[in-house]
């Protein structure tokens, strides 16, 4: 039977399973530790081993006793689902402990076998007889071996019985559930007659009990009562005010004229349902706990108080949820498109259904506690189902639906056909099932509709708000996002990431909060869910492989911790040891890289083994991989190994100027697979390490940065080469940044009819400055040449020597004279007009 009480007041018995789980764990642990103790004890003396066997035997006897107790209890509580769950857990724990007891005897068995092997086979027919001591020992060993086998056989049988019992409990629980739902009661006049008789009696008993209790409390436990209420109020207030402080913009509806954003509405709906409900649940739980702790409750009153509180919390949750979704008073905050009138009606109907269902459970528990006849409970549920069915029918006929864009205060339209039919059908089922006698089923369905429906709706809203929060740039719009932006100056991208994380954690929260609630609704017990969760986190079995989620998480955690420690260690080694000891930069880099890879590998190994992955099974994987390496991974592995060689050999270090094939530039990073070279154009070239190892690599700055520069220059062929050479030598000697030793050199490389070609070869302390020095040098040379008037090139037109015979020369002179005469005549005519002009205008002959 589904129990609301379990749903909402799990604190009260939630403590029990926890302590029980702990106990089971401790037992298992202690048994798991036993073999180790046994091993150490087994070797020295036989006395201890016999006592150990005795110990095992008594343990087994005790386990048998426990099994019998559990069996008896199963018989006794065969109608109590909650007790059966506990018993099942106990049976399973017992099974484990039986196994542990037998495992503890295994080392002794091994020892006996080893000793027997040492003694060898008994001498055959005709062979000389053994010493009496040996015969004695042989006997003793055989006896002990038999004893151990017998013990293990006993354990085996016990284990089978325990497993069978555990399976039987499961079967019983299944039957209980189906019986509770499918039990049929004849509905006739007698039933109601009987019930009406019982109800007056029950009212009297209740009245008497409650009055007696209240008088007792008032007289003797007044302070405790007030204390309990005050303390639980305090707890709830702390929770409520704390959550309000934290989530204020998410729970309160600010009065606005405009429609709030969809996300705002969603999150307000979700949180304004969840947080106050949690506060209420905390209040209820705390009240019950304190009342119980202060001994205010009596055994007959406690269940009534407990169910009363639980029902109150449940109804409050429902009302709060309906309020959040429908927002009957303020159309702006409504999540669904229904009219004002429709929202009010729906809210009223939902709350009434919740109230009726809650009252059904409350009254049912009262009947149970007061020992009233079962018919009374049946009749109460009968009416409750009828009322809820009727309310559902009424719901089907209201007209709340609005189409998009319609104002909330306008007239609504009827439900869509499918919803209408669904509501009518469910309502009819809830009315006819009890009329036909299936009261349990009707009650189950009604509870499912109300509570599961509410939980699912809450989950759905939560999901929607999670999705809305994680939507791109949605988080920045929320109040929390704005606050974060102000506080920490987070950028758009960071806020988006935070939003995504927030969305995902909302999903997670929903799963953790609500899936157990729904499961509880469906008749599972707290212990069931606990053991599932436990199993889910510790061992998921796929075939013969067991995966432990917690193990994997621990593995990941250890890996991350390992990484952090490595980083820290790397930094420490680099900064405090290597830097202090003035080690070469290349060595520093290599050591740092090696430390980081070793750390990562170590962290990986630790993480893997913590995750429960057997390292020896990795050997198989590695074996399989080696084939792959032969084919596909060849390059990567070769690069990897080359990287290791680079780290060890250090042909170049970070910052070196290298030439590898067509790539020239500075080494920026040496990692295990590839090396990054930045060219002078700032292009990063990633060169696989194998290329650097196999090919030729030039390094300008390998041992030192010493390097030679060459500056070629030409001067006009008319210059004196020795003078030019001297001048150049002077200039080069005076040039800053060039080394005197090795001496700079001026080479007269070539000459032609037009130029003399020189080359200056000089050494630099740091080749990286080469370009600057070259440019400086050229400038200095040019300045000096100009000062010394050394022509760099010839005249604009070349001088052309002409050979001519004397006769030819005369002829040409005559021709020229003639031409001059002709030119002179018109010129003289013109001059007559301007007679005063000076003789300096006389053209040269």
């Amino acid at each position, binding site marked *: 039977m589904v129990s609301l009480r379990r749903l909402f007041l799990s604190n009260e018995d939630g403590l029990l399973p*926890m302590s029980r*789980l*702990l106990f089971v*764990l401790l037992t298992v*642990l202690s048994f*798991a530790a036993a073999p180790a103790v046994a091993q150490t004890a087994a070797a020295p003396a036989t006395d201890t081993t016999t006592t150990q066997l005795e110990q095992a035997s008594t343990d087994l006897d005790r386990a048998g006793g426990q099994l019998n107790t559990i069996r008896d209890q199963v018989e006794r509580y065969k109608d109590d689902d909650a007790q059966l769950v506990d018993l099942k857990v106990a049976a399973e724990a017992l099974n*484990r402990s039986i*196994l*542990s007891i*037998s*495992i503890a*005897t*295994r080392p002794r*068995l*091994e020892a006996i*076998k080893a000793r027997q092997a040492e003694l060898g086979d008994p001498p055959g027919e005709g062979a000389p007889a053994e010493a009496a001591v040996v015969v004695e020992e042989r006997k003793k060993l055989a006896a002990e*071996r038999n004893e*151990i*086998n017998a013990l*293990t*056989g006993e*354990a*085996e049988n016990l*284990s*089978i019985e*325990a*497993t*069978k019992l*555990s*399976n039987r409990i499961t079967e019983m629980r299944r039957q209980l559930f189906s019986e509770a739902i499918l039990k049929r009661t004849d509905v006739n006049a007698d039933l109601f007659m009987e019930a009406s008789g019982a109800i007056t009696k029950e009212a009297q008993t209740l009245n008497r009990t409650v009055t007696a209790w209240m008088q007792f409390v008032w007289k003797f436990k007044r302070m405790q009562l007030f204390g309990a209420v005050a303390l639980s109020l305090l707890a709830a207030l702390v929770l409520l005010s704390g959550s309000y402080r934290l989530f204020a913009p998410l729970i309160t509806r600010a009065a606005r004229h405009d429609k709030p954003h969809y996300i705002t509405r969603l999150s307000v709906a979700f949180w304004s349902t969840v947080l106050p409900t949690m506060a209420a649940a905390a209040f209820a739980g705390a009240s019950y706990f304190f009342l119980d702790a202060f001994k205010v409750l009596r055994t007959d009153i406690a269940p009534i108080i407990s169910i009363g509180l639980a029902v109150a919390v449940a109804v409050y949750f429902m009302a709060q949820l309906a309020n959040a979704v429908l927002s009957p008073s303020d159309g702006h905050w409504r999540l669904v498109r229904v009219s004002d009138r429709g929202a009010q009606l729906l809210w009223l109907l939902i709350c009434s259904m919740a109230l009726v269902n809650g009252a059904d459970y409350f009254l049912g528990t009262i009947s149970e506690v007061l020992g009233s006849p079962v018919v009374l409970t049946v009749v109460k549920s009968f009416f409750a189902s009828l009322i809820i069915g009727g309310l559902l029918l009424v719901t089907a006929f209201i007209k709340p639906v609005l189409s998009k864009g319609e104002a909330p205060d306008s007239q609504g339209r009827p439900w869509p056909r499918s919803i209408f039919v669904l509501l009518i059908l469910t309502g009819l089922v809830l009315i006819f099932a009890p009329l036909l006698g299936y009261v349990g089923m009707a009650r189950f369905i009604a509870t499912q509709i109300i509570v599961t429906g509410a939980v699912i709706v809450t989950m759905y809203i939560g999901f929607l708000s999670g999705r809305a929060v994680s939507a791109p740039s949605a988080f920045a719009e929320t109040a929390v996002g704005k606050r974060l932006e102000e506080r920490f100056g987070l950028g758009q991208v960071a806020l988006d990431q935070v939003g995504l994380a927030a969305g995902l954690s909302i999903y997670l929260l929903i799963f953790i909060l609500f899936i157990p609630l729904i499961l509880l609704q469906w008749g599972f017990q707290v212990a069931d869910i606990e053991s599932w969760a*436990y199993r889910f*986190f*510790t*061992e998921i*079995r796929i075939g*013969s*492989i*067991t995966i*432990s989620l*917690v*193990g994997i998480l*621990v593995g990941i955690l250890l890996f991350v911790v390992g990484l952090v420690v490595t980083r820290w260690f790397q930094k420490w080694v680099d900064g405090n040891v290597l830097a202090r000891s003035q080690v070469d930069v290349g060595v520093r880099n290599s050591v740092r890289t090696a430390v980081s890879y070793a750390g990562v590998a170590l962290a990986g190994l630790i993480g893997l083994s*913590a*995750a*429960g992955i*057997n390292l020896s099974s990795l050997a198989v994987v590695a074996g399989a991989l080696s084939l792959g390496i032969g084919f596909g991974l060849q390059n990567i592995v070769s690069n990897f190994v080359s990287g290791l060689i680079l780290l060890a050999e250090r042909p170049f270090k970070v910052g070196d100027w290298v030439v590898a094939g067509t790539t020239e530039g500075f080494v920026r990073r040496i990692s295990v697979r590839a090396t990054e070279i930045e060219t002078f154009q700032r292009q990063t070239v990633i060169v696989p390490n194998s290329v650097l190892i196999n090919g030729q690599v030039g390094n300008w700055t390998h041992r030192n940065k010493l390097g030679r520069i060459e500056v070629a220059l030409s001067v006009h062929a008319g210059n004196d080469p020795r003078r030019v050479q001297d001048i150049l030598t002077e200039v080069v000697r005076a040039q800053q940044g060039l080394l005197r030793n090795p001496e700079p050199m001026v080479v007269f490389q070539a000459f032609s009819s037009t130029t003399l070609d020189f080359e200056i070869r000089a050494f630099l302390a740091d080749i990286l400055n080469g370009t600057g020095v070259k440019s400086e040098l050229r400038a200095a040379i040019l300045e000096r040449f100009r000062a010394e008037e050394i022509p760099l090139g010839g005249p604009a037109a070349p001088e052309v020597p002409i050979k001519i015979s004397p006769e030819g020369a005369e002829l040409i002179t005559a021709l020229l004279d003639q031409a001059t005469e002709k030119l002179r005549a018109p010129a003289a005519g013109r001059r007559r007009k301007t007679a005063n002009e000076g003789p300096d205008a006389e053209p040269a002959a």
Partner: protein
Amino acid sequence: MIMMLVVSAVLSAPAVAASVTNKDGDTQVLVIVEDGSRVEVALEPGATETICPSGCFVTLPNGDRIALNGGEEVEIQGGSASVK
């Protein structure tokens, strides 16, 4: 709670199924009691079988009975078992 889970997980992490290898020349029959039922498992010479993921009792060909936690590696030699 989390601490407890972590501790138990670290302890129970290597709890994978046990494997049994027959190193004898003949087929050996083991009787395995697991989950409340008795099963006979025949092992060919040289064969390895994975058994009982969550602990079991095994009756060996020579009559010895041993309990396994799951995760052990058992070798059968001369009808007798050595557990690693």
